[in-house]
């Protein structure tokens, strides 16, 4: 593989300060570190050896953890499509159809987001941070099948600039950028994000430019909000053969991701467990959480609850930094998501708003625990 090294080494002067293409230095740097672990060695003082883990690897493991949900989402797009137009199809057919729908969304999200990130990194003379690799994959996962590409592009640009880069980039943002994308879409283009027309793809072009006069299929949460009987069984919601945002439908696929994330030590199990406990408690306590043909606990398997708990709430940057804070954060997200779903007639889904709201409060939860430590120290000194 030495030839890659040679190519990169030959290109380096062109992209370095003073080179012809120095305006693309950050892009080159991103390519170089994509191929090779940086050869930078420790300074004279300080730890001389380092753990092999770096943010790149951690972040790519989040994407690995998302693969089951992505694959299932792809299949489900095709499955729902052929079911609604009344054609029979095969497993492969479903996959290929789903790939055709999801791939343009992923490409748009990455092109727009990474383009902005690289430009800003170049401007700030920094390395390109890899945080967007996760955000860029999350965005297509949390939008309806028929969300048009141009809207995804606008929302992604908005989120990267106003939810992330204005705060200082990866590690400094207050809100989860992928959720800001979704919130932007939700409030700016409500007709593209909710209702009965957006979840299942009747005509392929609907998924590209978002014509929404297509077929209609309600999600379980939509049926609940409308007071209609839920037409999906508990098993459907666990396996995921229901309409919904692309990545959110299969509880099983998401849980496989959760196991990978927790096992690799990347996501906090306290947040995930806390969210499920909070949600379960609230769903059990609220009298309207269940309905005909819908048990209270199915609140945890439908909609974006599981996906949000595993992939969104656990974002290390926008969640609390203290271990105690993580519990409170999780419990409140779960409880709040169910409260919004059940008690608010306007919004069938509450997960996005619950997480965004708790993102704001994350520093407050930390404050309690850090302040307790400070007070203990003050008390000790006074003795």
């Amino acid at each position: 593989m030495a030839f890659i090294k040679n190519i990169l080494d030959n290109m380096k002067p062109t992209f370095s300060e003073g080179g012809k293409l120095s305006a693309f230095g950050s892009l080159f740097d991103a390519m170089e570190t994509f191929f090779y672990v940086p050869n930078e060695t420790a300074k004279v003082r300080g730890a001389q050896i380092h753990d092999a883990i770096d943010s790149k690897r951690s972040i790519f493991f989040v994407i690995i953890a998302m693969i089951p949900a992505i694959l299932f989402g792809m299949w489900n797009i095709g499955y729902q499509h052929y079911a609604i137009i009344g054609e029979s199809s095969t497993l492969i057919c479903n996959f290929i159809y789903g790939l055709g729908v999801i791939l343009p969304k992923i490409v748009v999200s990455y092109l727009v987001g990474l383009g902005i990130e690289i430009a800003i990194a170049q401007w700030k003379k920094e390395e390109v941070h890899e945080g967007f690799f996760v955000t860029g994959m999350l965005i297509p996962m949390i939008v309806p099948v028929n969300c048009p590409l141009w809207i995804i592009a606008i929302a992604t640009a908005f989120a990267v600039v106003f939810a992330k880069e204005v705060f200082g980039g990866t590690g400094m943002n207050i809100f989860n950028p992928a959720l800001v994308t979704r919130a932007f879409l939700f409030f700016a283009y409500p007709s593209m994000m909710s209702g009965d027309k957006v979840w299942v793809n009747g005509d392929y072009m609907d998924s590209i430019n978002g014509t929404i006069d297509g077929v209609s299929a309600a999600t379980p949460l939509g049926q609940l909000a409308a007071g209609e009987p839920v037409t999906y069984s508990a098993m459907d919601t666990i396996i995921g053969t229901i309409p919904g945002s692309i990545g959110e439908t299969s509880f099983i696929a998401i849980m496989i991701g959760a196991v990978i994330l927790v096992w690799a030590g990347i996501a906090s199990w306290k947040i995930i467990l806390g969210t499920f406990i909070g949600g379960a408690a609230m769903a059990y306590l609220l009298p309207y959480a269940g309905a005909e043909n819908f048990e209270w606990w199915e609140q945890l398997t439908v909609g974006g609850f599981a996906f949000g708990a595993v992939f969104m709430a656990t974002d290390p940057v926008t969640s609390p930094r203290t271990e105690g804070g993580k519990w409170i954060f999780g419990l409140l997200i779960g409880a709040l998501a169910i409260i919004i779903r059940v008690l608010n007639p306007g919004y069938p889904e509450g997960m996005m708003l619950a997480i965004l709201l708790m993102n704001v409060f994350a520093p407050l939860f930390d404050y309690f625990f850090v302040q307790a430590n400070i007070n203990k120290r003050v008390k000790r000194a006074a003795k």
Partner: protein
Amino acid sequence: MANVIKITKGLNINLKGKAAAQVSDAQMSKVYGLVPDAFWGMKPKVVVKEGDEVKAGDALFVDKLHPELKFVSPVAGKVSLVERGDRRKVLSVQVEAASAQQYVDFGKKDVKSLNGEQVKAALLESGLFAFFISRPYAVVANPDDAPKAIFVSAITDMPLAADIDVVLKGNEADFQTGIEALAKIAKVNLGIKPGSSLSNIKGADITVFDGKCPTGNVGVQINHTSPINKGEIVWTIGAEEVIFIGRLFNTGKVDLTRTIAVAGSEIKTPAYKKVLVGAKVADIVAGNVATDKKVRLIDGNPLTGIKTSEDAFLMAHSTEITAIPEGDNADELFGWIAPRFNEFSTSRSYLSWLMPKSKEYVLDARVKGGHRHMIFSGEYDSVFPMDIYPEQLVKAIIAGDIDRMEALGIYEVAPEDFAMAEFVDSSKVELQRIVREGLDMLRKENE
């Protein structure tokens, strides 16, 4: 029965090239050098001229602010060079060793008959006082201070660190005398590992600490036995340096001979060497360093040590010289996804958690990732066994918020306490440098 404290947080890094328990004498160096930088927080004023004859125990430089604080020559001979760097900063004072060693005679003393002031005076006179480190600030102790306690850690658990049992062998009597001498100045707390033979040392409050690295850090032990409050001062001193003190009272000489580990994957036969403080690194590792690749020599252990070279001198506090591969030509492909079987990591995205605990790793000096803002939480905390929020403290330091640093407990820490956190950090933040800057900033503000 000594108090036992169990510490759960921490991490043991099993590196290749641990020193075998064989001690041999290092060859005598032609020139010895005392490096002022080893005594952090002090401004050196050189009191000898090039060409002066000195004995072992004669002062080479003193602290400008406390001239009674002396830093003495480890050998007898002729001052050959006062090496200066930018802005005339003293880099080292070098002494060409005479063929026959002569020591300044400070007189044998029976510690039991002395009081605290007399012990302190003897230590100042002989220059051994310079080995005290004061917390807060982790700097050379101020002779005017009255510490609430003196802490000694007899646990060496940093990767590749010299084993205290080997170092103490043959020096037990001096160690005992040294502890008794310290006990005259202030209460002495001695931290030992479970089953240590030091449990019968007299004159010290002994606590057994059972846990992973960095349990051996004296800062961790202070935090668990008697945390430092604002306004309080404690002194710490290395167990090996307690031997120097005992030796002074038992023989009347300043004999800075210490047993250090020469270890690491790039050392051919890792073992212990008896050397004098200030010896040339080249003479310590002579013929023992692998030549097939670029090697990084470290003065100290790989977590807290300083990159050194064969031309440099052994720093005053160093208990080992380690050699690891430099690794700057490793060119590893696709590090973000490749399995990388030979890498050690706390993350289960690598396979080191599957390997037997006995597997020894060869880690090179690469940082192994890009520098980022702190992204993942809880990393520092998992290897920081003190009742302090390390991440919040580091952030307060970066922000230069002195009140918050104080509130979060900066008085209790030294840069070395953050060494393991710096190792595990996936954002590759230079924690020890930041903490050092924070401590210096605070000291400047308070003094």
